[in-house]
């Protein structure tokens, strides 16, 4: 007996192993409810994301079924019809085709396509054309190279990189509708646990919505290559229960805190060209090119999530942004140590 048949067994075993491992790994993606550090699409916490996950399970079952059937037949063929005796030179029956079989395996896939298409189309309309409830919060998202600007037009708030939205629930729906604009190139807004991604395109307005049902911090990032620091255009969405959200709004609406003890730092800020790019509401700084710093200290990270907001990081960022996010568009302002300390002190008062 030749050893050719050995070849087919491992292949079949490998096929089975892959299938098993895949099915075992899949549930691991569906972790507990609420936000996690790993933004798995199988841990949805908001209506559009949840709907998509359910559709995903359906699609995966259909596709998984096809795989089992066809893959199974392939595996069977590979084992059963291997050449057991190469010395036997007889050729097997030469079959040229069969119209009935061709018809059968044309019609069945078409039927599967119809089912998948109708299910999918229904969900497309449900998500994209969902009517906007009057209680919805409106946020305008502006994508920049390499940070996110968030404006709440009706609340008079402008902030950056960390988005706060109210918690929603079935009884008291409070979805957030996001209008997506770009200041420069194409970006994409993606927070997997909250919704599918939508591109952020210059000269083109897109709309998306989220409806988060569990509070906490949800992470995501820009999902369309936008230049050298695309990898560090991170997103942090804080879903706050109503009380917390109201407090956050109230704080954000206030103009910047004026602390006379850091007047020197404020002086540095206003004379060293920082104000050309940044806004601090209530001061002369009204620059729009970089993030709004009015309530910088209410955030937990800087550089669009690239590093945690600590004094040391803040100081280093101002001294030389390229050392933390090489290629970011903020220039090093060539401040001396004293100026750096002063301006950092100043910024630390902007709660």
């Amino acid at each position, binding site marked *: 007996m030749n050893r050719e048949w050995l070849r*087919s067994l491992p*292949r079949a075993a*490998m096929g089975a192993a*892959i299938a098993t491992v*895949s099915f075992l790994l899949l549930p691991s*993606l569906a972790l507990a409810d609420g936000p996690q*550090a*790993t933004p*798995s*699409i*199988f841990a949805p916490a908001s209506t559009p994301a949840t709907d*998509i996950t359910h559709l*995903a399970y359906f*699609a995966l079952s259909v*596709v998984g079924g096809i*795989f089992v059937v*066809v*893959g199974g037949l*392939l595996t069977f063929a590979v084992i059963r*019809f*291997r*050449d057991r005796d190469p010395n036997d*030179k007889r*050729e*097997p*029956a*030469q*079959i*040229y*085709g069969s119209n009935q*079989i*061709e018809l059968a*395996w044309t019609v069945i*896939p078409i039927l599967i396509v119809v089912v*998948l*298409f109708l299910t*999918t189309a229904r969900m*497309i*309309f449900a998500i994209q054309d969902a009517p906007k409830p009057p209680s919805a919060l409106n946020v305008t998202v502006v994508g920049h190279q390499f940070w996110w600007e968030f404006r709440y037009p009706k609340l008079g708030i402008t902030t950056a990189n960390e988005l706060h939205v109210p918690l929603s629930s079935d009884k008291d729906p409070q979805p957030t509708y996001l209008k997506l604009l770009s200041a420069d*190139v*194409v970006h*994409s807004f993606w927070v*997997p*646990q909250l919704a*599918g*991604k*939508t*591109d952020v*395109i210059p*000269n*083109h307005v897109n709309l998306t919505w989220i409806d988060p049902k569990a509070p906490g911090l949800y992470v995501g990032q820009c*999902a*369309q290559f936008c*230049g*050298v620091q*695309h*990898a560090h255009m*991170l997103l942090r969405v804080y879903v706050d229960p109503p009380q917390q959200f109201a407090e956050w709004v109230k704080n954000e609406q206030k103009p910047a805190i004026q602390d006379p003890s850091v007047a020197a730092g404020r002086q540095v800020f206003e004379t060293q060209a920082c104000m050309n790019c940044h806004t601090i509401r209530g001061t002369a700084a009204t620059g729009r090119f970089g993030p709004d710093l009015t309530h910088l200290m209410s955030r937990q990270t800087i550089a669009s999530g690239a590093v945690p907001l600590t004094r040391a990081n803040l100081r280093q960022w101002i001294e030389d942004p390229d050392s933390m996010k*090489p*290629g970011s568009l903020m220039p090093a302002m060539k401040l001396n140590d004293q100026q750096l300390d002063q301006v950092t002190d100043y910024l630390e008062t902007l709660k």
Partner: protein
Amino acid sequence: MADQTFPIGGTLDLTPPRIAKKTFLEWLLEWATTVDHKRLGLLYIVLAIVFLLVGGAEAILIRIQLAFPNNHFLAPDTFNRLFTMHGTTMVFLMGMPLVFGFANYIVPLQIGARDMAFPRLNALSFWLTAFGGLMLYYSFIGGSGLYGVGNAPDVTWWAYAPLTSRAFSPGHGVDYWALSLIITGIGTLGGAINIIATVISMRCKGMTLLRMPLFAWLMLVVSGLLLITITPLTAAQVMLTIDRYLGGHFFDTQAGGSAVVWMHFFWIFGHPEVYVLVFPAFAIANEVIPVFSRKPIFGYPAMVAASVGIAFISLGVWAHHMFTVGMTSVDNAFFVLSTELVGVPTGIKIFNWLATMWGGKIRFKTPMLFLTGFLFQFLIAGLTGIILSIAPFDWQLHNSYFVIAHFHYMLVGAIVFAVFGGLYYWYPKVTGRMMSEKLGKWHFWLMLIGFHVTFDTMHFVGLMGMPRSIYTYEADRGWAHLNMIISIGGFVQAIAVLIFAYNLFWSYYKGKEAGNDPWDAWTLEWSTASPPPVYNFAVEPEVRSRRPLWDIKHPEDPDWSYE
């Protein structure tokens, strides 16, 4: 079975090809000025293999950088250039040359012709492709720009506007990208025209289109598809160059231009392009699977119809790359339907290959090992494609590592595996020697293991929210372990490919003599010597069925009495 002789319009040239003495320069000049389809075919394949190794090296560097979170092995701009070049190289300098390499060598032999319809155009097309490749890589040293001396393009292989405008890409990287691809595009157009004219106008007596080997059919269909696939890209790149150099506003969003228009134009090229890349795999499967199953292809007319169907439908699915762009729900639904429909003829092909193997006597020599891998992997790749066609699901999966896993399953798991199979299958014809079965099996198993370790895992890291085109990722996202596994698989595949490269060389000098027909096959190329003489056939063959050599070997039961 390898030594059967039969009354074929045979060869008259008895000089073993390697003995003729030439100086090195004479040899070089011969290759540089050749218009022989076999030599040009080999040049294309060598070009493809060289760029496979280069693109593979780029991939290895990428995987080293991504093996650890917050890694500093590569600077961000270097990483961005490497993945742009990796994609561009693999598609245009590896995948496309393989189409023309296989078509050039095999098609004239299979249709009983002496050469391609336009030998000099053939040579021009090859050298334009090679020059374009050289120009693209020259960008590493010539592309002076904002970030210092020399840079290659760093805008991804789909180069979305307005990132590619002068404002956001001030160096010359984008120009190298656009211009080198315009040049290779002209070469591609020439090659496609040549194949169409050859297949339509140069078949031997008796070989009607429906008696032609499926390999030739697929090359005809892919060439027709190429005519209207590569040209939109050329048009878009000309527009981009007009924007960058003549102050045009095609994609200038500040002047009312549209970034979305670039996306449409690019994907109108980009989607059919991936079908262009997969057609040679189909072509090879249509030859290798029947021969090694010892049965004719099941459902020849259905296979022809399915191939043509895939080509047509593939022209209407492009916006499934744009589900997240904000098209209307009706637009999105349309493209869901068209994309899923392309799965129907594709499925027909898989079923026909399965039916070909069914009831056969499958010989698992190296070519068939690779084609069996192709079948399983192509099936899975097609299924993940169906998953991606479901627009809402795609709103999560688009631009994530799931997509990368899907298309590498196609490009590597299906196409590269099939191509390896085809190279092992036709190597004896081209060189007169068999490739080492032992090394072939090492190559196969390492490639299979490495491939699955990398690309199976990659699906999961995409489902866990990891986007593509990022030079690093946060440590607390939970992606680190899987990325390490993916990278390890990459190294295993690299070893496999190096074994293959070694096998190519070793077998040329030490491989077993192959004879005309080592695999006991049935199409015309196996009737002539290995390697074929420069004129291919001493007398133009005349055929009566799809498997002329089967008819000769089995005069009591010829094909033409059945179909």
